[in-house]
């Protein structure tokens, strides 16, 4: 399996040398920590969830009491930004795992069986690939409605074809490898071959892509929330907060700047991590990297 302890150990060793990847990993870890514990550690939980408002405190610039200032309802932007990480994490995990599941399972069988069925599934995948993913997500969001859950579903529905194609390509190469023939000759049954021989060896590019996509999913979800069809107020989703703060950009820049910075940092961290993971999995580049001591 790709997630073997050896693999993790090797990647850990590699990360220690890849400064960008390491930075990414650390930020991602902080982000996950925040997402999990946000409601318990933010200074103003009620503000964070959007239940409360405080007229006296409205539109305060950043200060000690409110490090990121307050918004138009006098809610603490810092608390909201921190809690926002929970939404982004749920989105990233939800979208990537659902899309991965659909894409991989579908094309694993399509790719292994090949022939007409394989082609048929690939054609369906191609149809979906004809849309820029975020627009397809927008289409689905419009059809199934707004809100966090619908957002995740829409994005997943738009995303799976990318994994499907990767898996398909990979499965069709892997299934022609001698070790698959060897397994067949040894009399190992088809389900075992698919799940133990083809799946783990087809997964690397998809996993790399999934890693890279975590950030992208967060970003696209934020974009959809920004145009109003994602997470709904008063929830503190970053894209939504940017959109709300945009109206006041002239007087209260902090309302949209801080969620933006947070969004940027987290997506960047995922990108760094994903990129380092990709280079780690690309032996050609890896050899070059190692030789340069990067």
């Amino acid at each position: 399996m790709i997630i073997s302890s050896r693999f993790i150990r090797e990647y850990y060793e590699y990360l220690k040398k890849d400064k960008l990847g390491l930075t990414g990993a650390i930020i991602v870890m902080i982000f996950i920590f925040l997402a999990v514990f946000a409601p318990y550690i933010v200074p103003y939980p009620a503000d964070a969830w959007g239940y409360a408002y405080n007229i006296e405190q409205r539109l305060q610039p950043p200060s000690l009491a409110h490090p990121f200032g307050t918004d138009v309802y006098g809610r603490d932007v810092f608390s909201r930004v921190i809690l926002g990480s929970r939404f982004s994490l749920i989105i990233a995990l939800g979208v990537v795992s659902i899309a991965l599941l659909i894409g991989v399972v579908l094309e694993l069988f399509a790719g292994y069986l090949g022939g007409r069925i394989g082609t048929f599934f690939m054609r369906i995948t191609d149809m979906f690939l004809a849309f820029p993913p975020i627009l397809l997500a927008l289409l689905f969001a419009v059809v199934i409605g707004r809100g966090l859950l619908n957002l995740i579903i829409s994005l997943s529905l738009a995303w799976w074809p990318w994994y499907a194609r990767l898996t398909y390509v990979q499965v069709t190469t892997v299934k022609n490898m001698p070790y698959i023939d060897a397994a067949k000759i040894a009399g190992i049954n088809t389900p075992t071959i698919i799940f133990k021989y083809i799946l783990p060896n087809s997964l690397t590019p998809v996993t790399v892509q999934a890693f890279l996509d975590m950030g992208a999913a967060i970003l696209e979800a934020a974009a959809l929330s920004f145009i109003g069809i994602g997470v709904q107020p008063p929830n503190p989703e970053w894209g939504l907060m940017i959109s709300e703060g945009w109206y006041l950009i002239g007087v209260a820049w902090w309302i949209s700047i801080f969620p933006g910075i947070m969004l940027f940092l987290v997506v960047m961290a995922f990108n760094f991590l994903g990129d380092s993971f990709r280079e780690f999995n690309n032996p050609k580049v890896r050899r070059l990297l190692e030789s340069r001591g990067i």
Partner: protein
Amino acid sequence: METLLTVDDLKISYKSGNYYIKALDGVSFEIKEGESLAIVGESGSGKSTLGMAIARLLPPNAIIEKGRIVMKDIDILNSKPDSIRGKLISMIPQEVGTALSPFHKISTVFEDVMASENKATNILNEASKILAFLGFKDPERILKSYPHELSGGMLQRVLLALAIIKRPYLIIADEPTSMVDAPLRINIVEILNAVRKEFNISMIIITHDIAITPHLCDNIVVMYAGKIMEYGKAKEIIDNPLNPYTKLLINSIPRIKTATRFEVIERKNTQIQFYKGCPFADRCESFMKGICDITIPRYTSLGNRKVLCHLYNDKK
């Protein structure tokens, strides 16, 4: 004959992450003008590294720890690569499929290779002439082709033409005959011999294919784990290998005429750390029988030959 190239105590490692991989460990030898030298040995023994070091083509992670390469009074390792590559030394690559840019016609490559020579002669004429010499009936057509439009054998000759068009003193061929059928192997040997005769070019042939060496080379360097195990006239070495590794190598070649009998020594699992001492000890019968010890042996010169082995340290 004058000495063309001297390699003196060359030590090269590769840096790979935190590790250093020793590729060459104190290699010294000479090539005379017009001479053809074979470098044979195990996979990973440093043959390609040696060839690339001479042609100044080492990858960036290679570290030259020690040693000198001198050719025609030029210190190869300390001069500009551009003044060496192509002019003094050229290479013939092994993989023909990926050896030429798929996006360019053969003629373009010839032009670019010759670009630095501001000779009055028409470059393409020159190329045609060499291609014709290498046996092409219609060199113009070859020049107009893309690499993928030519067969493997044709490409091999095109690559040879590219390597010799600037008339270097030395060409290095890395595995010119691997993955090739017997008739074609003969063919390549013949062409290389013809080139050598016509242009008086020295050659280093890096190869696994010991069978071709007596037809193509004057001398052989046998390498093992970054060291030269034995050096000498090709035919002498094949007739009478001295070093146990050379013996193993020669005996491992399956024969055609008579059924072979391999003498195989299976590597035993021992706890001794071999890399510090004699590199071949763990496969060496003499070591296992206790005839010699693990320390690094010295070179012994026996006439034209040089051997690295305890068995010969005492002799002579």
